[in-house]
């Protein structure tokens, strides 16, 4: 049977971790979405150097472990005189890593919009940026929502590696509690439940958006 006293006695720490995880995830979600969208546009823009930058970023970042990115930012950058807190370094690492996957999802979504849509928009005199903004991206976003949802859920779960740089999020608090109380099983079950409290609504929200947006088509 689960020991609920572990939960009640350490509620302040669990809540502290929960809030931090929520905050890190929220920041990284917004910034990785923005960065990922920019990278996706880089990859498909009719400008070769931008294609290269986008391509190199995506291939490089998505093919290395997130842990290395985190270590690079947290312990590598101080060599160059840039010292960041665990929280900041962790948020940046999550953003940098997730953006590569989001860029790929968005690029695939943009490519899935029929070419005729671009031709119709361009032939009416809209420029490239207007065509993207008013015609292509609103259609791509609908296609992209399910894979994007997966990435956001992964992001929340990946935030657990921030425990390594003592960012104070859920996993870190769980580690602290279990090492202090010597209770492991119950503590990590509660930690998992707190993650589910974030990821399940996220998952349901994505499903809802998917159905809701599909209706307008």
């Amino acid at each position, binding site marked *: 049977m689960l020991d609920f006293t572990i939960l009640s006695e350490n509620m302040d720490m669990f809540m502290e971790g929960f809030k931090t995880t929520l905050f890190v995830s929220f920041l990284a979600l917004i910034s990785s979405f923005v960065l990922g969208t920019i990278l996706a546009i880089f990859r498909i823009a009719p400008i070769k150097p931008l294609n290269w930058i986008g391509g190199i970023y995506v291939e490089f970042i998505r093919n290395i472990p997130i842990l290395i990115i985190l270590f690079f930012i947290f312990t590598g950058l101080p060599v160059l005189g840039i010292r960041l807190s665990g929280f900041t370094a962790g948020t940046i690492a999550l953003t940098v890593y997730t953006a590569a996957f989001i860029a790929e999802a968005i690029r695939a979504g943009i490519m899935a919009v029929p070419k005729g849509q671009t*031709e119709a928009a361009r*032939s*009416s005199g809209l420029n490239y940026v207007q065509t993207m903004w*008013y015609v292509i991206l609103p*259609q791509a976003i609908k296609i992209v929502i399910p894979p994007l949802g997966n990435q956001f859920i992964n992001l929340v779960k990946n935030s657990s590696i921030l425990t390594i740089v003592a960012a104070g999020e859920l996993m870190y608090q769980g580690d602290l509690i279990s090492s202090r109380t010597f209770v492991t099983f119950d503590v990590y079950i509660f930690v998992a439940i707190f993650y589910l409290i974030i990821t399940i609504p996220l998952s349901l929200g994505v499903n809802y958006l998917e159905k809701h947006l599909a209706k*307008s*088509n």
Partner: protein
Amino acid sequence: MIHFENVNKHYGDFHVLQNINLNIKKGEVVVIIGPSGSGKSTLLRCINRLETISTGSLKINDVEVNSKKTDINKLRKNIGMVFQHFYLYPHKTVLENIMLAPVKVLGKSKEEAKKTALYYLEKVGIPDKANSYPSQLSGGQQQRVAIARGLAMSPEIMLFDEPTSALDPEMIGEVLDVMKNLAREGMTMVVVTHEMGFAREVADRVIFIDKGQILEDANPNEFFTAPKEERAKLFLSRIFNH
């Protein structure tokens, strides 16, 4: 108004357009016909630079279409285009489809653009569909919206790329009627189509193209009753005897 001079286009080794010389005057309705793969759509799409040309000169109102100095967006707002598969924006209502370019490209106010949009919707005969989404319309209605969308920019030239080829036979008439009215009002039109009845009735000139070459450039009467080229005779006999 539209002026092709020795225009050639290559796709790798494939010579899509060969030495095209063609002059289209203001107010003319020119129908381009020919077997599939002959280059007729490519020819049309060169006019607003959806395709670039390899050599030669293509001018619209004395502006070189393929010159780097040409502001292509400025040129394009003067040329409406209607596609085989309509390409209405599925996430926008009929009204929003028609208003987008006038607002964003011409800088019209929303009210003004809406007024214009409603005027053209009336003209193509579906004012009651203003707030519908494209997916709620039949093919014929969608194509009429696409025509209204082109007209709302008040272009001098309208290009039609097989506008009825994707439609059910029942709906072809309603789209052709809109086009006929437009022709009567003096719009300069270049139309790629397989609708020979339309060509015969409305066209000022019929261009027959095969393997990237213009083989005939004649008035429709001449072309349909006494085509000069063997290839054109064969094409017509295949179309009319089935």
